[in-house]
């Protein structure tokens, strides 16, 4: 029996993986060959999907990208024994694209059958939980503090400090809420880990529950990810069966239950207070802060709200120690970050490395430039509220503080590349449009300002004289100042960042 790995994962699926599974099954039957198809996640090399790997006597051999049309050919070339084919990759871990990464959070992703507890455990899974059960709340929180882990959802707040706050609250009920809304365009790391190694999120949330004394957890998942939901629910059921979730976890006397909750297509519900409103079944309107969710969160109870990657990084921190994790990265940006290379890029996908690599190294060494082969002109880092950088800022190190110094933000680590056909006035206008579509409507600078913003940008571009253009430019600057200072949350508050960075770095596109 030969084991063949084909990802059950959105990217692979979007490029025909399910058809491929059927084609391989049919062909194997026809040729009377005994194969077992294992559904792993993606290793994150989206440019190689669907990536098929075969377990052979010489180790795992990869072929990619493969479509159902290649199947007969693959069998003819004896791919079940690692035979050569036009799409042969050899051992994919030896490809530079993987070898040059530092995978901690994604160490298992794409390697194991995604929801299989035994395979998860064979690669270090649940060791972190075991260590957590062997220590106390302070012990767990200290490891997380030592790791230097900062929230990967965007705001980069130290995870250990948030946990400390919740742990210190007296309450009859506390909650762990995982923010899996992943609304930022250009980002897909949350999805990849939830589809490829969902048990790491289950384990991370359970450890968070132990750390703060919470017994209930929710994963707030965006509705654009229906396959992710199925995989997560499989993983939760498997963890329950194996005694890693539910009552009396591993005989410890500790309980933790987990449930997936679906969002309904609202970007703003990624903001933590809006998310909590939504989870309570209400309109996703922003709450005033304070009180922080850590103190009054879900149903007014102390609540940890953490991003998927923050939580999925906890198992390896508890397994190998906070200090080990902190050996990666630099300055105040410690550990690794799963960057996501997307847009107009030749080799896009997930690149997990320690902080400190430059944007250029990421785009040129991993991404190998644009998909169209034209020069890179603009890069948006950190989602729709992140700055647009010109080519000249590509040597900025990927580090929270260094990026802030250059006028940008890392956010959730999404990197979207544009070639020289991009029109930056259109991009700036889109930022305003997106804000107007997704505003929760609570405050005027965001709700109305974004609509005015689109109009002003249109007038700048259409202006017939330099004076007219300049006076509209001043209106835009004033409007952005107001949005920045008078918006209740970062939706209205940060929309000026992509807009004004486009004006600053690409004035010609605005005829300025």
């Amino acid at each position, binding site marked *: 029996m030969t084991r063949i790995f084909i990802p*059950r994962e*959105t*990217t692979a*699926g*979007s*490029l025909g993986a*399910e058809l491929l599974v059927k084609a391989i099954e049919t062909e194997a039957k026809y040729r009377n060959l005994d194969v077992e198809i294992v*559904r792993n996640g993606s290793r994150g090399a*989206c*440019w190689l*999907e669907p990536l098929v790997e075969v377990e052979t006597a010489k180790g795992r051999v990869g072929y990619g990208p493969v479509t159902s049309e290649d199947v007969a050919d693959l069998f003819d070339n004896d791919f079940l024994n690692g035979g050569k084919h036009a799409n042969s990759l050899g051992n994919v871990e030896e490809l530079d694209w993987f070898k040059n990464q530092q995978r901690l959070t994604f160490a298992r992703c794409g390697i194991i059958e995604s929801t299989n507890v035994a395979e998860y455990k064979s690669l270090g899974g649940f060791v972190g939980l075991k260590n957590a059960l062997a220590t106390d709340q302070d012990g767990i929180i200290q490891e997380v503090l030592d790791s230097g882990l900062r929230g990967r959802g965007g705001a980069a707040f130290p995870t250990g400090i948030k946990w400390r706050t919740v742990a210190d609250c007296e309450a009859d009920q506390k909650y762990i809420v995982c923010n899996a809304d992943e*609304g930022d*365009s*250009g*980002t*897909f790391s*949350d*999805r990849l880990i939830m589809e490829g190694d969902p048990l790491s999120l289950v384990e991370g949330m359970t450890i968070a529950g132990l750390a703060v004394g919470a017994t209930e957890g*929710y994963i707030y998942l965006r*509705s*654009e*990810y*229906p*396959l992710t939901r*199925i995989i997560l629910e*499989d993983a939760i059921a498997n963890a329950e069966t194996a005694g890693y979730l539910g009552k009396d976890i591993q005989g410890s006397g500790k309980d933790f239950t987990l*449930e997936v*909750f*679906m969002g*309904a*297509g*609202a*970007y703003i519900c990624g903001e933590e207070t809006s998310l909590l409103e939504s*989870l*309570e*079944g*209400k*309109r*996703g*309107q922003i709450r005033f802060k304070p009180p922080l969710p850590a103190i009054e969160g*879900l149903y007014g109870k102390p609540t940890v709200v953490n991003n998927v990657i923050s939580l999925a990084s906890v198992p390896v921190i508890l397994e190998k120690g906070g200090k080990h994790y902190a050996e990666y990265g630099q300055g105040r940006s410690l550990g690794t970050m799963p960057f*996501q*290379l*997307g*847009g*107009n890029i030749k080799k*896009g*996908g997930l690149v997990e490395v320690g902080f400190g690599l430059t944007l250029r190294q990421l785009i040129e060494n991993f991404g190998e430039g644009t*998909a169209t082969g034209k020069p890179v002109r603009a890069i948006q880092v950190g989602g*729709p509220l992140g700055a647009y950088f010109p080519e000249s800022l590509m040597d900025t190190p990927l580090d929270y503080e260094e990026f802030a110094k250059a006028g940008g933000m890392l956010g959730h680590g*999404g990197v*979207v*590349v*544009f070639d020289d056909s*991009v029109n930056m006035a259109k*991009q700036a206008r*889109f930022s305003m449009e*997106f804000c107007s*579509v*997704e505003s929760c409507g609570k405050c005027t600078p965001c709700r109305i300002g974004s609509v005015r913003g689109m109009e002003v940008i249109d007038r700048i571009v259409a202006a017939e004289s330099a004076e007219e253009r300049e006076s509209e430019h001043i209106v835009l600057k004033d409007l952005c100042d107001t949005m920045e200072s008078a918006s209740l949350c970062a939706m209205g508050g940060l929309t000026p960042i992509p807009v004004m960075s486009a004006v600053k770095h690409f004035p010609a596109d605005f005829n300025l």
Partner: protein
Amino acid sequence: MQQLAGQITYQDWDLEKARELASEFADRTGGVMIALHKIQETFGYVDDTAMAMLGKVFNLSRAEVHGVTSFYHDFRRHKPGKYTVKVCQAEACQAMGSYQLTEKIKSFLGTDFHGTSEDGNFSLEAVYCLGNCACSPNIMIDQQTYGRVTIEGFKALADSLVKEAV
């Protein structure tokens, strides 16, 4: 192993059936959201008559239920076409020509966003990121995402779906 649903056939609106579906979630965290999803999955949309019914089930005013339903882009108030096509309008897809693709899809289906093709087969919606940004441009049809979509690819796909539907 559970897979994504293939073609979704919506049932005709039935308030009693909707009440039954919703009642199951009466005690759940955020139950009204779960109920709205369930109702839409079953009937393709949330009928006006569901507002008062959901209010009773979840102990909310009709206005509150309406407020929740209208806040979220997902919840529709009118019956959609057989298939719902969502075309990604966000940045990574823009960088790979999603606007041009969108225009071509609109003219092929003969409808703008929030509309339905005349034959009743396809409703068209905008979506902001499908989380497949390294394989842009992307679209989603019902529950299935498709990557690196071209207009030729879309036409072929649409044709095969129409055949499947009859």
